[in-house]
């Protein structure tokens, strides 16, 4: 009894100390981020802070470069609209319970509009080449198109790896394990330096497309392992029953096995999507200016604002955090309903 009381007392003393510490830290954070912070794009006010408060002014000053990279200034309503188109598509697919042909049509038209807005060259929109693309639209584009390309590749690789053909099994296994064994940076280097050597002389595939192919190969290998787990979890009887009904291999896989397998691994696939969203930040290493790279672009060359890169990075971290957190919460909600 005494021992328990003593424990209780220690526990609450610890609680109190921790609580006070947290309150103190929380107050300082609030003080730094809000009370003392400079929200206006006033560099001299930011410098006058000497670190006592956050300089969100760097975002207010540089938001165009941060969000749109090197996209031509007078055309920036287009990437802005493209962001909303993409967010609308994602929102519509998340909210609506009915999946199927209409959703597919919506995505097809939505992505066409998205690309048309960014690229232009039609309907009187000025042409903007891919090296000028950047910021948030580029992050969204790499994530969504990366996932869209990686998913079918992953399904094929997974089917190949659990299939009956030994040669195909070996090939898929070797590909998956090699890609999973190397860092994404190495794959991006391949996209940047090796792919051009594979093209006939004079062919110039835009860097963006090459990097996208690299991302698809990388994410495809990881997702293949997730899907393989799902395929192995579907009872053997399912395939045998479908086969005995006289269905072909592809018919069995597409309408019997895969739907069950994918439902089982939906949360894990969602994790792959979150990982890919975060991994797109690496493309700065091969010279594409998505959200993370665009901030460097905005402040590195500007002596007035260079000192406030930290505040800019924190702002971007908040954007990524919201995206990832929303996705993981959505994944949990899906788990409960299916």
């Amino acid at each position, binding site marked *: 009894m005494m021992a328990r009381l003593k424990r209780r007392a220690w*526990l609450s003393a610890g609680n109190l100390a921790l609580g006070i510490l947290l309150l103190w830290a929380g107050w300082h954070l609030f003080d730094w981020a809000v009370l003392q912070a400079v929200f206006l794009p006033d560099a001299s006010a930011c410098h006058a802070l000497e*670190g006592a408060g956050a300089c969100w002014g760097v975002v207010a000053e540089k938001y165009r470069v941060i969000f749109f990279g090197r996209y031509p200034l007078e055309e920036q309503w287009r990437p802005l609209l493209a962001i909303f188109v993409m967010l609308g598509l994602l929102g519509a697919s998340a909210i609506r319970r009915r999946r199927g042909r209409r959703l597919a049509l919506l995505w097809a038209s939505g992505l066409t509009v998205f690309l048309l807005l960014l690229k232009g060259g039609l309907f009187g929109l000025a042409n903007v080449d891919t090296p000028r693309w950047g910021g948030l639209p580029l992050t969204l584009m790499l994530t969504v198109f990366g996932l869209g390309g990686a998913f079918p590749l992953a399904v094929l690789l997974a089917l190949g790896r659990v299939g009956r*053909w030994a040669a195909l099994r070996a090939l898929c296994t070797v590909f998956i394990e090699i890609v999973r064994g190397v*860092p994404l940076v190495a794959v991006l280097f391949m996209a940047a330096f090796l792919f051009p050597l594979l093209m006939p002389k004079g062919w110039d595939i835009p860097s963006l497309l090459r990097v996208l192919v690299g991302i698809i190969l990388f994410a495809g290998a990881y997702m293949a392992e997730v899907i393989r787990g799902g395929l192995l979890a579907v009872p053997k009887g399912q395939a045998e029953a479908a086969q005995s009904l006289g269905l072909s291999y592809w018919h069995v896989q597409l309408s019997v096995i895969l739907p069950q397998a994918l439902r089982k691994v939906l949360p894990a696939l969602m994790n792959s999507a979150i990982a890919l969203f975060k991994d797109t930040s690496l493309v700065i290493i091969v010279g594409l200016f998505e959200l993370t790279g665009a901030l460097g672009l905005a402040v590195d060359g500007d002596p007035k604002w260079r000192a406030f890169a930290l505040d800019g990075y*924190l702002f971007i971290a908040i954007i990524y955090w919201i995206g990832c957190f929303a996705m993981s919460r959505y994944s949990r909600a899906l788990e409960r309903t299916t």
Partner: protein
Amino acid sequence: MKLRAYALQALIVVAILLTLYGLATVVAARMRGLGVEPGFGFLGQRAGFDIGDTLIDFDAADTYGRAFVVGLLNTVAVALVAIVASLLLGAVAGLGQLARNRLFARLCVAYVELFRNVPLLLQVLIVYVLLIGRLPLPHEAWHVFGDWGPDVWLSKSGLSLPWPVWSNGALILERPVLGTFTFSGGATLTPEFIAVAAALTLFTAAYIAEVVRGSVQSVSQRQREAALALGLDEAQTLRFVVVPQALRSMIPPLANQLLNLIKNSSLAVAVGYPDLVAVADTTLNQSGHAVECIAIIMVVYLFLSLLTAAIMGGWHARLLRRQGGSA
């Protein structure tokens, strides 16, 4: 029927091998066209660049091959430090999420949610900018442990600490001394190293915490109750009953996280810490041997991955053997 399947498979394999051979020929021809002779002979040539952070002696007169060794050692160094630190932090945060102290548990959950949902690259950059921007110049360095503790200094040039060296056949502790511009003597961890190691640790530990939490929760509540009923206290229950059982299901996903950590150490290139990838990047831009440099990166990481997987697999097998059960 069987024969046809074999024939088709053979055909696929031959077609893929031929394609690879064809691509290799094309690449070799293109490289010769650019005036670069394919092959690893260039590793013996003079590198001509300096490396800021080295564990073995290196200067611009040394070869590309030695530069790669320097890079590999740096990769291993930063990965080892981050592995040890993230295992410790991950274990604390993972068990902490289940702690009876609600406040501490909440704090651990908040930590995991915060650091898992921000890209690692961004975390590396944030820590780096923080260090570079907020630390004092060397001649105003912070004396970390005060004037009486061990001689550890923190400044823009990094963390300088005493380091044992051989001198006249005896091992002595050499202390860092402030020169005109920076510290000399002892050992110095550069801000780049600290940024990469710290960000890798914070990021990976958040994932390890989830692995630890999941495994501990998967141990049946009855086991815990039985242990408490036998008179073990809370700490003993955790140490002798819960953790040994949790370890079994913990090691495979833990191995995965360590593999990720090693691969993620390649982000060092973003802040200029000279790891293997950074050295390869410089070399391929300078010498044009892109294919060879990428091949070296891939082979080294595959080897490191296999090595880690083998070590963790061996540990897992030994644990299962000793506990005499199946996972």
